[in-house]
């Protein structure tokens, strides 16, 4: 009771029989807590405006119904019961309702054992809910690199919404829908990764259940040791790029970023190594280069018989010019600079971020980085890089560096763009848009209006066409490749769908700029039109081919993908292995052929390059060194760094690594050279240096043939003839 003795501005109430004096305006929840009486809650956090939606904090004030104590201000003389039987029963039922839909144990419970709902339910003795479970799952959203979303674990407490909104002022998250189908949504119900979320982590930190949890990068905390200091969350928060990020979130990601010091001459990272981190240089200069010899494997013809010599050597393209190698091109690497073919060395300095592809997509390192002076850099894992990349200022700074240092090379890297005037290149440098896409995100959709031309800056883009019963992959595009010209030059409609295969960054040239470009530089138009016509023809041919092949075993074995197969007629084959030996003989004792593989009818399809139509080997090359000639033979560029990713990606095991001993700079002793083993990828070259593939030539039983599957199997596939 407020009595004559109650000081002004104070209110006297009774909570669970105890007389309590609190300032006017205090909520019953706070009044109880201030006096040591804990009221359970799920939706209330001390740093957020109370909303009273979970209703767990209900108390009995003697009114018609119970009151949510977090939103109920105390009133003079109020008599509150926080633990009457009525209150406890109601709370228990509420928990039982929530538990009936809860995917127990949820991600939070599994990660850290602190799902607030499960903890409260357990304390209330709820083991199993008597209510029916939700029948239609609400789904997961794994699109964000930093935060996993499990909508089924969401109890709509609104804590994330208030965290995003009133705590961090980011305004990304809200409720969507109505009633039992309500849920949380980002922007206009985008996936979290595609939304305007900046990965500040406040929602995840605010979430009481496993609906929003830290993804982390499993088992890959960066080792801290001499030269590498870890950070406390509070140190990180002082760095401008982390301003606005939740401290608790950074705390959870501790170990995902370290500050490293490299002495002059020390290797920061080595080409071909697998890694998962990116570096951001704070101080000092570093040299980025490719140390693997810039050369490809050549197999010399002629030497046969008893006096076999090693016939494979490394040669650069000056000495062994292959098809379509008419122009110098730059070597794309995972840094804001590209390397020149003739002199693959460049310098990195403060403000440069490198290793983005390795970090985001787990590709091997594309180049070797050595500290030229003492270097101080942040080394970070994907989740931290993601936070940084979502910072608008940092992003703008990176984009500016890219425009300044590498964009021109990229534009000039498109062969047809060689004719562009320097002024126009300068104009484009300012007018192009830099865009980012998350894995699986559609960049252009078949059938949509074409309004821009794209150049791939980072990552891989899958080009596919709709086909009855699924999609057909037409090509994979990587750094330096471009797309969108067919739609712009042709009917104004996209003829294929382009999807980001991984973390993709693109340079977008608007339709207007593109039209001006082809208008002013006729050479560009002719070149692009030629390529567009070529691509269209190839696509058409492919569609026809697919139409003519019956779906079944042939397809399921991937044979349809092949354009050239080595087949062994098992009725003639005596398993003498002469073919295998001949292949080894022709390639320095390293066979590129294994007499094993899939069977189709009475033929064994030997493991040797199939010149696939969906060349998976080409996805992921960190330096873009694997390509195809027009003959579709897989060709390895001179700047292959021997990381072996293509060999791992080939589903048929047909790419091998060929080791060579070469003299290379000794990192331990500057200026000195030492012998090291370097690897180069090789695949079946169809023995183009010989009249006939040596395996076919060597077969004593006329059992080995290299064939175009469509022609060869045409009869078996029930077709008359196939071109």
């Amino acid at each position: 009771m407020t009595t004559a003795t109650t000081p002004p501005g104070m209110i006297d109430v009774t909570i669970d029989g105890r007389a309590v004096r609190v300032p006017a305006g205090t909520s019953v929840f706070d009044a109880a807590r201030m006096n040591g009486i804990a009221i359970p809650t799920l939706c209330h956090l001390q740093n957020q405006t109370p909303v009273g939606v979970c209703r767990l904090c209900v108390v009995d004030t003697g009114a018609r119904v119970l009151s949510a104590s977090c939103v109920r201000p105390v009133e003079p003389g109020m008599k509150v019961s926080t633990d009457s039987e009525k209150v406890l029963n109601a709370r228990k039922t509420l928990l039982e309702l929530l538990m009936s839909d809860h995917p127990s144990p949820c991600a939070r419970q599994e990660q850290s054992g602190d799902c607030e709902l499960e903890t409260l339910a357990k304390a209330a003795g709820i083991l199993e809910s008597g209510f029916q479970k939700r029948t239609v799952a609400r789904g997961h959203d794994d699109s964000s690199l930093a935060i996993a979303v499990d909508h089924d674990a969401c109890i709509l407490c609104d804590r994330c919404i208030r965290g995003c909104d009133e705590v961090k002022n980011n305004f990304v998250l809200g409720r969507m829908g109505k009633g039992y189908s309500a849920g949380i949504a980002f922007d206009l119900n985008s996936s979290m990764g595609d939304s305007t979320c900046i990965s500040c982590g406040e929602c995840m930190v605010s979430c009481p259940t496993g609906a929003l949890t830290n993804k982390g990068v499993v088992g890959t905390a960066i080792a801290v040791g001499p030269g590498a200091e870890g950070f406390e969350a509070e140190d990180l928060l002082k760095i401008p790029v982390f301003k606005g990020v939740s401290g608790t979130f950074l705390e959870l990601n501790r170990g995902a970023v370290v500050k490293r010091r490299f002495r002059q001459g020390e290797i920061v990272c080595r080409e071909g190594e697998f890694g998962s981190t990116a570096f951001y240089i704070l101080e000092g200069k570093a040299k980025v280069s490719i140390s693997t010899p810039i050369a490809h494997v050549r197999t010399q013809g002629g030497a046969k018989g008893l006096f076999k010599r090693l016939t494979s050597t490394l040669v650069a393209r000056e000495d062994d010019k292959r098809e379509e190698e008419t122009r110098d091109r730059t070597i794309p690497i995972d840094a804001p600079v590209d390397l020149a073919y003739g002199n693959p060395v460049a310098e990195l300095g403060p403000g440069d971020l490198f290793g983005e592809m390795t970090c985001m997509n787990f590709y091997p390192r594309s180049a070797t980085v050595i500290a030229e002076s003492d270097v101080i850099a942040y080394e970070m894992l994907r989740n931290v890089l993601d936070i940084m990349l979502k910072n608008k200022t940092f992003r703008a700074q990176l984009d500016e560096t890219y425009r300044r240092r590498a964009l021109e090379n990229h534009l000039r890297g498109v062969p047809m763009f060689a004719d562009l005037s320097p002024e126009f290149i300068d104009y484009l440098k300012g007018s192009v848009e830099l865009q980012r896409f998350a894995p699986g995100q559609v960049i252009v959709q078949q059938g949509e209006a074409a309004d821009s031309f794209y150049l791939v800056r980072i990552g891989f883009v899958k080009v596919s066409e709709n086909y009855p019963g699924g999609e057909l992959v037409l090509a994979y595009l990587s750094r330096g490749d471009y797309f969108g010209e067919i739609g712009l030059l042709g009917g104004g409609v996209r003829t294929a769908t382009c999807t980001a295969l991984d973390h993709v960054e693109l340079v977008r040239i608007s339709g207007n700029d593109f039209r001006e470009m082809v208008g002013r530089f006729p050479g560009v138009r002719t070149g692009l039109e030629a390529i567009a016509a070529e691509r269209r023809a190839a696509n058409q041919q492919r569609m026809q081919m697919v139409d003519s092949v019956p779906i079944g075993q042939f397809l399921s074995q991937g044979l349809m993908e092949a354009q050239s197969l080595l087949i062994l007629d098992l009725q003639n084959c005596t398993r003498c292995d002469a073919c295998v030996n001949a292949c080894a003989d022709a390639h320095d004792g390293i066979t590129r052929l294994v007499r094993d593989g899939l069977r189709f009818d009475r033929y064994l399809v030997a493991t040797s390059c199939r010149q696939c139509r969906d060349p998976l080997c080409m996805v992921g090359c960190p330096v873009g060194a694997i390509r195809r000639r027009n003959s579709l033979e897989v060709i390895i560029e001179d700047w292959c760094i021997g990381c072996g990713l293509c060999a791992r990606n080939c589903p048929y095991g047909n790419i091998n690594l060929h080791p060579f001993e070469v003299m290379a700079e000794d990192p331990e002793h500057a200026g000195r050279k030492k012998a090291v083993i370097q690897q180069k990828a090789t695949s079946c070259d169809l023995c183009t240096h010989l009249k006939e593939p040596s395996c076919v030539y060597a077969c004593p039983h006329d059992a080995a043939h290299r064939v175009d599957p469509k022609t060869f199997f045409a009869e078996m596939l029930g077709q008359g003839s196939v071109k």
Partner: protein
Amino acid sequence: MPGDFRARRGDVIFDDLRAIQLRHGFLPKAELEGLSQRTQTPLYQIHSVASFYPHFHLVPPPKAQIRVCADMSCHLNGACELRADLERRFAGSRAGEVQIRNVSCLGRCDHAPAVSINDQIFTDVTAARAEQIARSAVRGDDIREPHPEQVRVTCKADPYGEAEKYGVVRKLVQSRAWDDVLARLKAAELRGMGGAGFPTSMKWDLVRKQPDRVKYVVCNADESEPGTIKDRFIMTHLPHLVIEGMIIAGLVTGAKRGIVYIRHEYHLQEEILGEEIRRCYRAGLLGKTILGSDLGYDLEMFVSPGGYICGEESALIEAIEGHRAEPRNKPPFPGQVGLWQKPTVINNVETFINVPQILARGVDSFIAQGSNGSRGLKFVGVSGHVARPGIFEVPMGTPLREVIFNHAGGIRGGRQVKAFAPSGPSSGYLPASMVDVRLDFKALADAGSMLGSGAIVVCDDTTCMLDMALNAVRFYRNESCGKCVPCRVGSQKMADLLARWTQGGVPEPQYRADLALLDDLAQAMSQTSICGLGQIAPAPIQSVLKHFRAEIDAHVLRGQCPSGICFTAASRAGEAQRVGIRP
């Protein structure tokens, strides 16, 4: 605060969204992104609102969107069969052409079953007619029909008759006897006619005493409870009393602005009230200087973007503010902190018309209009299995038997009354034996029910009461805003549980456990839900358990439906259609 969108006035959002929808037929993403940029409204806020109201389409709608009213009166008049029939008729139609869904009560309970096709409402619908209209819509024809000719019905509640209207306002502007108005309303014991029955004089007095300079008056014309159709009638035939009541509320409480919040299914009433408002402006009864005095009052219409929950007064306020219609935690009440955080009078349409009546005729004559000791008149809607469904103006205190048998013509087809709901699902069902209960706040409360909004729904002896209880809880589930746990999750779990019962074959121990669980759930919902929707949702099944327990036992334990409604192929097919939460 820079970047703080919260301070923004959100009510423009509906106009913007409606404009976009008018242009495109739905709300395309690119347009919403443009709207966000233009108005500095976060994307999430636009989406949270657009996805809340059934009025807005986030994807292109089909050419013919057929929505069959699924609630109480329509349910009693063959809505299930109508929908099943329509499903058969359009079984082969292409995706994007015809879509058949259920919809919550359209407010045409006296002409059941009602169907909405592309937001046009059709009543007394047969499957053949609905098919014909939908096929025209698919062809792209205009399916709008002109409003039927309205004959003004003379009501006893109108104190003016042929005489000059707005006499009370004219006098009040002269006398300024505000306290006298409150005293008379108190003496007449006028209570809210929307359902809750809160004393009107207390509400007005509270707002009057607030020191704020800005105050509002809101007329709640969003009646959406199944069976409730009386406000539609009042707005059609007594628009001047609605407006006069609102002007008086403004004058007495010091509010300078009034808003009529009308449900979007009431196009005709929107026109009638709009016309009346314009007439008042022309006559100087509205505007900055009422009848040349220094008193000012502006009145406007606000068309609801839809949903039963908008009838909850604080949810209604949220809707006007351009938010999701989620009820607020109370206290504070709208009388203290209402629309745009200002003190606000919110009353039902019928409450407002009683005010000029009391003031014009005097308290005593108002009271004398009631019977059996009750005060005043009451508009009731009678629907369901009656011979002459409709809206009737009866003295308070009239026995329901008289309303059902004399006014509404008794039960159709000479059948017997089995049960009746005095006021839609919220009042629960009373058995035929209680049909002599009087239409009165106290009498109905004593009977374990309530006067509510006077939405009398009558069930004949072929009705399955478990089916009716399930129908009611599904209505609450569909209309729950989802803000608080007990209502959002509880209404779904209650519907699940009752649906399981209608399937039968539950072992007795399980049934006993279910009954205990249902009891706990009902307690939790009625005790902890934020607003009346969740609090009242258990009422229908509780009333059926109380009065028709044997019928439920037969279903659950023996797999028998005494009325032959459940356990039939039709009912199972209907059940299959209802999977998911938007039936």
